[in-house]
């Protein structure tokens, strides 16, 4: 089954003896959304980086579809399986359409410009904004492009969003998270997002907490 499973995962920085993540466990299913709640520096971003294959566990394992992430090509995994947004919008200094094209190119999918345009228009961008450089767009419009990037990657089974309150501050957290959740349900994808507030709680099927390096299941909610 395509799921992400954390088994006794430890993570500590190279020159630190303090464990950022301490023997955490959990299972994350497609078609569901998960909110990981935690204070600043509690290890939320580190956990998302583990899911994205940017870093590997110090101990324990993180498996995807039964395969340990340490044993697979993590760049290819990230390119194909993951759509991620870490804190501030990370976009290339290019046009919105070029950003989406690059995302698709690196995922190995076939680029269909019409589809990409549709996605960009669906998040609220105007036709004329699709090909102009990002520096000519407002912060709100750039955040919409970042949202479209998450939605455009068909192959991605896991969508990771770090602090949506900050990433979609200008374009509206509710609008962005609503679209993301709907997209995940429709396409049977897993959505994991981390927050410091309860603002996005209504978009999560399961609530988890991260504190002192421990990941705790809080509750499941029906939406």
């Amino acid at each position: 089954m395509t799921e992400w499973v954390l088994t006794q995962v430890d993570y500590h920085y190279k020159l630190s003896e303090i464990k950022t993540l301490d023997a955490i466990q959990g299972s994350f299913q497609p078609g569901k959304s998960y909110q990981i709640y935690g204070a600043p520096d509690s290890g939320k971003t580190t956990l998302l980086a583990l899911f994205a294959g940017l870093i590997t566990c110090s101990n324990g394992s993180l498996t995807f579809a039964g395969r340990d992430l340490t044993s697979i090509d993590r760049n290819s995994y990230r390119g194909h399986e993951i759509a991620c947004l870490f804190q501030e919008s990370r976009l290339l200094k290019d046009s919105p359409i070029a950003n989406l094209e690059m995302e698709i190119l690196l995922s190995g999918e076939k680029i269909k410009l019409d589809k990409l345009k549709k996605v960009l228009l669906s998040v609220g961008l105007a036709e004329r904004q699709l090909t102009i450089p990002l520096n000519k767009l407002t912060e709100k419009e750039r955040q919409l492009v970042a949202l479209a990037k998450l939605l455009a990657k068909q192959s991605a089974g896991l969508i990771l969003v770090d602090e949506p309150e900050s990433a979609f501050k200008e374009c509206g957290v509710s609008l962005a998270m609503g679209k993301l959740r709907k997209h995940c349900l429709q396409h049977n994808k897993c959505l994991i997002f981390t927050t410091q507030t309860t603002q996005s709680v209504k978009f999560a099927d399961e609530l988890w907490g991260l504190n002192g390096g421990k990941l705790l299941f809080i509750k499941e909610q029906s939406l």
Partner: protein
Amino acid sequence: MIIIRHAWLNLKRNRYSHLKIGGFVLLILLVIFSMLQVYRIANAYFLDYREQAATVVKGVQDLNQTGQAAKLQQTDYEKLKNLSYVKRSQLTGQGIISSTLVQPKEGKSSVTAYSSLSTEHLKENYLSLTMLDNDSLKTLLTAKKEKLQGKLPLKKNTCVISRGLAEANNLKVNETILLGAKGQEQAVEIAGIAEFSTVEWLSSPNTILINWDTETVLQRNIMQPFLNVMFQLTSKKEIKKFVKDFKKMDSFKEYSLISQNWSQELFQSSQDTLDLLLNGLVAALILGIVLIAIVYQHSLKQRQDFYTLHLMGMDRKTLALSSSLESLLLILGVGLSGILISTQLSKWIIGEWLIKFQKNLMEQEPFVDWLLPHVEQVESRATALLLVGICLTILLLLVNLRIARIVHDPLQEVSKR
């Protein structure tokens, strides 16, 4: 293909920052390349001229105890002149001669070079007289043809006088003047009137120029004659042979030979300028490379696309290769433009300097056959390409270190934002 595509996209995406960086690097390379080419060309020119100067030997007459010079046999000079390894030669004599002509009021006195003259002599009219062989007369007067009115004084009993002297005595071409002490005067026809520009070489700007045939007629009237000879050899290696041949001649037994020293002052000032330029070049080179490294490092830190592309799934190899190709294209474009522009720029900078130097040489030594040095640009271009290579290596090192750091420690990048 994917590498080339990503490199092209990187270039396109970062065109404004590349434009800024490229402009800065181009400016630095232009300064360094121009200085390098100016130094190379000037150095090659001066070395060539120094080599040419080294083939020139001068013979200066030693005065005997009575202060009189020994008589020169023209045949001895001719024998040396006709030696196979003698390229050019010049026989010059200087002296003073009594005359009824009036000295021009303005300008230097014609007898300033003869400080040994008694006050009694100075009260009379004495004129400076310069004797030259026919070839040297041609060189001296035809090189400045526009300043010579009339003909060359190649016939016996002819002379060329200065414009100042002609105006002071109201003389014209083809008129006759009398030279020599009272009762022994010789009539000499004015073949031409000239304005001498090579006053550094002539003893006086108002000298009378005659050839050696005329000198034989005026010989008895010429006072304090002083002779010197100049030989330009085909090669520096022939000097030893020439010295032997020179010493064999009876006429030149009382002559001292000087070689190279005569040009030292002129070359030394140019060498000092070159040394200064070399020091500047070394300083500019070090400073330039450090500045390029600092500015490029700063621009790399500003770039977010390495991390963004890595997040999108681009592996380290593709990222490193495409970014390296991007840096290669940037530095090649800037480097080649730098070489081309600096070649033109350095030609313009060096032109004035070399023309002035050449003019000085020609004026100081008008009878030496100065050949315009041919300087190959290949060597300086190779050095410039080497510099481009060094810049490229630094840029590649910096970009790959940056990528390695991002890939190795992506959380550092996340926490930075």
